[in-house]
């Protein structure tokens, strides 16, 4: 097994508008992407557990054109609201970095 950061060239989170948070994992190469994609380790249940949601509201999209997996969830707090910790949503991917994935 490898950690996700070891096989990804980019792991990021960002607002998709003030009401949604979106995560992108872009892999270093096609083979690794396909291996992780097919192993389904980046899935709605994992996101639901970490971000305390129901799996139904987690959207997981496999994007072959960029060797990428995109996950979009409702924003935990509206961007910039009194409770928000991260206006751009840019530092919400931490738990993904060390996720265990099959090696390329």
């Amino acid at each position, binding site marked *: 097994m490898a950690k996700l950061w070891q096989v990804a060239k980019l792991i990021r989170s*960002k*607002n*998709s*508008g*003030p*009401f*949604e948070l*979106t995560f*992108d994992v*872009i892999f270093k190469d096609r083979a690794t992407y396909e291996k992780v994609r097919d192993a389904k380790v980046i899935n709605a249940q994992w996101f639901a557990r*970490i*971000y*305390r949601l129901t799996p139904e509201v987690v*959207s997981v*999209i496999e*994007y072959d*054109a*960029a*060797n*990428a997996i*995109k996950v*979009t969830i*409702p*924003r*935990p*707090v*509206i*961007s*910039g*609201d*009194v*409770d928000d*910790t*991260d*206006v*751009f949503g840019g*530092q*919400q991917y*931490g*738990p993904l970095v060390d996720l265990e994935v099959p090696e390329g």
Partner: protein
Amino acid sequence: MDSEIRILSATGVLGSGFREETLKRAMALGPAFIGADSGSTDPGPYYLGSGENLFSDSACKRDLRLILLAARAAKIPAIIGSAYTGGADAQLERLAGIAREIAREEKLSFKLATIRSEQDKGYLKKKLREGKITPLANAPCFDEGVIDRSVHIVGMCGIEPYIEALQNGADVILAGRSSDTSIFAALPVMKGFNPATVWHMAKILECGAACVVLRKYPDCMFATVTNDYFIVEPPNPDYRCDPVSVASHNLYENSTPYELVEPSGILDTRHAQYEAVSDRAVRVSGSTFRPAQRYTIKLEGVELAGYQSIIVGAVRDPIILRQLDSWLDGLVKASKDRIRAVFGGDIESRYRLDVRVFGKNAAMGPLEPETGIGHEVGLLFQMTAPTQELATSLMKSVGHMAVHYPVPEWSGLITSIAYPYSPPEIARGASYRFNMNHVVEPASPLEMFRIGYENV
């Protein structure tokens, strides 16, 4: 109809900059117009709420000056959308003021069109009663009270107001809130180019040089559009695009890379192909555009959440850190007791006090899965109240209570927080809240926007 059209995106956001040399190179390639986005909801609700801009006037003026000089020299339109971050009328007027200043200083003359996108509350209430306002994903509840409470509400315009302005001979178009892509799609669609190719190009160009392999600094981007494909190639020789970098850009700030929703329809990139035509240019083809069943305009609105005062401090004492959570709970309770003693019981419902702990869960809040802390933590006390005066007054009580709040292990008066500033409390001003994620069905694409013309 021409067989191709060339498009120059000056930068991802006006005021973030681009290289003058890159703009010159791009102008030599014969663009049909220069476009630039000036706004976003990304930096939060403050800008639409306050009318301030993400960048300074000086930074925007520098970028706009170079754009206007290049566009007027080549006699091509310059199109700027989402003026001054929020795109409210006052923000558009500030940007227009800068354009007029530049014209005076550079002795330029042009026909200026301004597209105002701020929305009338009476109009929105009427639309709401007619059932013509509907929620998007994860939208908060929306009623007439939300409309009344809003400080500013803008509609995000499509390509149609730009086309109207271009057909009326505008040389420079400054728009209030606009879809980012409409800035780049309007003129090519007006000229009759395939909307699927045009909208996909617009999505790639709207962030300037963001679609290159490694964007080291903001800069221009260039595309050549035909009916069947477009080619994107950075005009900066230090930059290159490859198929993955261009395809990856569809991921950015978008809930899905396959669909881009616009007022007039949906760009579908599921069958798009990205092919290298050189080691730095990419040909994109194969997307489709599905015209919308109903034409919709997205609303953005903000309301005042309150005024804030904050205190930043650090805790280093291992004895305190060992019991940080209970120490903070006690500190907050003691502060609230003190506030009640000073301001009376009625104060309870008029403020909220929050503590953020840097070094523990400041980035992810209650979602943070890690539980440990290091040898010190940063504290950020945050007071929110209906006026700045009240927020600051309340915070002064908290600041004093917090800095001497005891732990059982030490006897005698302790000073438990390192404050880097005197005074510790900082007035943060107004705090706003995005309060709608809805679309309106207007009677026509122009109904919600007012276009003004002037000869500058």
